[in-house]
């Protein structure tokens, strides 16, 4: 039996009072010494900031496990749930505080933007691993849009901008059937 899927629709402009939750960006347990910050801007094809986007991150724990844990919506500050939800601010900026995943070194990112008829998927890589089939299939300039760039300084921070359109447009993904 195959059921036809429910189609997606635009998130619309009024999600901001419903979906974001306190501590949504604080995926790393409070005060964790290995906390890293991933931050950047969401920009449109004119280079204008997108102030009303919602970013959702899903990732492995530092030990590589992908089981996740409940408690994202009411964080107790101690559990690594693997899930974060971060709205952009008026200048299109977002900031995520997390731990670098074990196993595959990337964050899965689902981006919801008013003015798009559906959501977008991409990945945020901390480094490019050898033999990654997605990265191998991309020309270098496109591949570069998926890398979170480490920033100089005492804080462990990475810069990751999302460009929805135009020059240096971020690579967005369409997931195909799982390989046997």
């Amino acid at each position, binding site marked *: 039996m195959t059921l036809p899927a429910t*189609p997606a629709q*635009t998130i619309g*402009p009024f999600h901001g009072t419903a979906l974001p939750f306190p501590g949504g960006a604080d995926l790393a347990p409070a005060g964790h010494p290995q906390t890293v910050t991933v931050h950047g801007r969401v920009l449109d094809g004119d280079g204008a900031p997108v102030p*009303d986007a919602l970013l959702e991150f899903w990732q492995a724990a530092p030990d590589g496990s992908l089981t996740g844990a409940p408690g994202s919506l009411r964080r107790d500050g101690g559990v690594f749930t693997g899930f974060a939800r971060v709205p952009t601010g008026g200048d299109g900026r977002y900031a995520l505080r997390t731990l670098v995943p074990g*196993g595959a070194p990337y*964050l899965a990112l689902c981006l919801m933007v008013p003015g*798009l008829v559906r959501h977008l998927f991409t990945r945020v890589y901390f480094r490019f691993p050898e033999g990654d089939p997605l990265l191998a299939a991309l020309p270098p300039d496109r591949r570069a849009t998926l890398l979170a760039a480490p920033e100089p300084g005492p804080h462990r921070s990475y810069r990751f901008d999302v460009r929805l359109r135009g020059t240096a*447009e971020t690579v967005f993904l369409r997931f195909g059937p*799982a*390989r046997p």
Partner: protein
Amino acid sequence: MALSEASEKSWDEPADRAAAGPLSSRKRPLAPPYVGRIARRPQQPPVPLSLAPGAVELTGPVFGTADVSPSDADLTRQHGGEPLGERITVGGRVLDGRGRPVRGQLVELWQANAAGRYRNRLDRHAAPLDPNFTGAGRALTDDEGRYRFTTVRPGAYPFPSAVHPNAWRPPHLHFSVFGSAFTQRLVTQMYFPGDPLLPYDPIWNSVPDARARERLVAVYDPELNEPEWSLGYRWDIVLDGPDATWTEEGR
């Protein structure tokens, strides 16, 4: 102007594609479909990716009673008094493409109040706010994949733009749903049966396939009525497998 964005005439730009798929005369679109804001729409096609077993996106976040209380699903009990409007119960099942229930997952809902106004600073529609209604709720699916909300039926509101100067949004509920895999993430909208505004709605018509559009419309289900309390609407949600997130957008 109902929406600040609409006043900038940037909400919506001319359609650059025709609606596709077989259309019944009853549900033939009477308005060009919403195509969104061009400046935000990627030009490059999405890159196809076959996920290997163990890929991050084949798993997803988990939620539980730490995240959601049963009372979060009753939008009529979030303030000191009763909200205005027609009280409704909206329920159904969240299933995957094989008909299996999606268990223990998060379903989120947000909506306008009975007068067609969102409690959101971006909403400038000249309709009253309701001090007893926020318009946001959360629920977890049970072991059969069932969810259930109590709320009020939202009102219609104007949605003007350069392309659609006389557009009104039909009453609708926004839904956010998680599956067992991150690839199944879904954000969409639910509509009410028999609504004469539907064929004129650019957003509803942004789904090109008529049969797929119909899947966004709930059915009135007396079995879901709370006796002498609320009217019941049933709406089942089917999440994509990882093999159908984009190419079949028009379904």
